[in-house]
């Protein structure tokens, strides 16, 4: 395979870039690769670097070096610096300000896009349904369509019962 830039030498560096769901392949010879800065070490291992010292420093700066303490588990900023791990689920609220910047550099986005526990998804769906029904009821009442209003009222009642069923321990 020939280098796709100089078209003279044998390609030994094969790069694949995925940008915006499109895969691009480039085959370069050693010299062209160097010229194009493919071997530039500064461009790599971002996440690994952040995992270490970078993380806690960034958090400290964002939190203004304050002595925040999680009210649920007693975990502090200093503990995070030492362990690189948080104390409990509530720490994500306590340290949210400092964490935000960190999450941005560490991940693809800052909003969860994946799996949601089924029970939660269901109750979210029901809550949305409830809102819809309430609107329908209001509209029916305003229009003095009491037949529709009664229907909506009944459905609201059964939806509320379903929610109570799910959220009950």
């Amino acid at each position, binding site marked *: 395979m020939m280098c796709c830039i100089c078209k003279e030498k044998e390609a030994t560096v094969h790069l694949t870039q995925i940008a915006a769901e499109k895969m691009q392949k480039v085959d370069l010879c050693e010299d062209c690769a160097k010229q194009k800065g493919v071997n530039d070490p500064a461009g790599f291992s971002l996440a690994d670097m952040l995992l270490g010292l970078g993380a806690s420093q960034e958090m400290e700066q964002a939190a203004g070096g304050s002595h925040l303490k999680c009210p649920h588990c007693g975990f502090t900023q200093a503990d995070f610096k030492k362990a690189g791990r948080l104390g409990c689920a509530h720490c994500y609220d306590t340290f949210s300000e400092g964490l935000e910047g960190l999450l941005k550099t560490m991940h693809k986005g800052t*909003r969860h896009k994946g799996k949601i526990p089924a029970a939660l998804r269901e109750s979210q769906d029901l809550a949305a349904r409830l809102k819809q029904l309430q609107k329908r009821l209001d509209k029916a009442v305003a229009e003095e369509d009491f037949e529709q209003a009664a229907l909506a009222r009944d459905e609201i009642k059964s939806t509320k019962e379903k929610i109570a069923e799910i959220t009950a321990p």
Partner: protein
Amino acid sequence: MNLHEFLVPPAETARREGPNTRIVMSSRVRLARNLKGLAFPGWAKKAERIRALDQIRPAVETLPQMAGAFSESMDNLNALDKQILVERHLISREHAAKNAGSGLVLNREESLCVMINEEDHLRMQALRPGLQLKQAWAAIDAVDSKLEKKLDYAFNAELGYLTACPTNLGTGIRVSAMLHLPGLVLAEQINQIIQAVNKLGLAVRGLYGEGTEALGNVFQVSNQMTLGESEPEIVERLNKVLAQIIEHEENARGTLQEKKPKTVCNHIGRAYGILANAHSISSKETMNLLSFLRLGVDLGMFPEMERGLVDELFILTQPAHLQKNFSEKLGADERDLLRADMLRERLRSVSRPVNPPVKLDKPSEE
């Protein structure tokens, strides 16, 4: 039942094959989950950890997928047991260091393994031979969906599943494949590949050995980012990159055979010579040479040897597996002698590498 009776013999596990087994030794998908209202294991007091374990362990044990599983508290496993689990890639080194308050549930086939109170309350993983990331994801997704009905997970609509380390936040997923890449190492292209893969936000590390060292040319590629992307997207992204790495490895092997056939034969022939005849050999040298033996099988230089034998030896020559058969504690020197004895014995019936290699039909793979 004790662990040694339970574990599937390496002779069997090493012979399980999946798609692209030539290069992809195994696939793994791991999910991290935590319980609501309890501190993460690293911060929790012992009593709180035990409380979490007591909630989680029965929930995991009663899963239909875990019928006939091995379930134990980590303080009931001795150092050797734990090391054996590490050498089989069933638990992490970190988990091996745990004691009371941590646990392990492992299914009969060793395809599902749940670590309780490792860094997170739950670290559950599905393992598959060869390249089977989608299958592994489906398996662990099913386990997780069953468990969420019995356990109250720490979940936040904005941030997803909450984990002890922010690097696992969101999906809590780590998708990884164990790759054997001797062609890229011999062709000195491995560093370029690692850098390119890193640029795509994926991690590559040597599976054996410390730091950057990759003993046996075995590498692990995994996702780094867990938030802002769905699980299937992450699996798909890794699959795409793995397909590329596989292609590069095959190309590197082809080029080497064409351009430097003597170099390749020399490495493989010497590896065979030493492994089959040495009387003392370290674990490090063994792994590096076994890698060439595996390459030799792939290239058709050992027409009668199974790839599974090499993979079995990869496991059996590790320190804890050698120690297992002896009651008294062995020193490193003694292990080197025993390792060499075992290799000579197991390779006795394997004929010298043939040259030119036997033409192999490339297995039909996706």
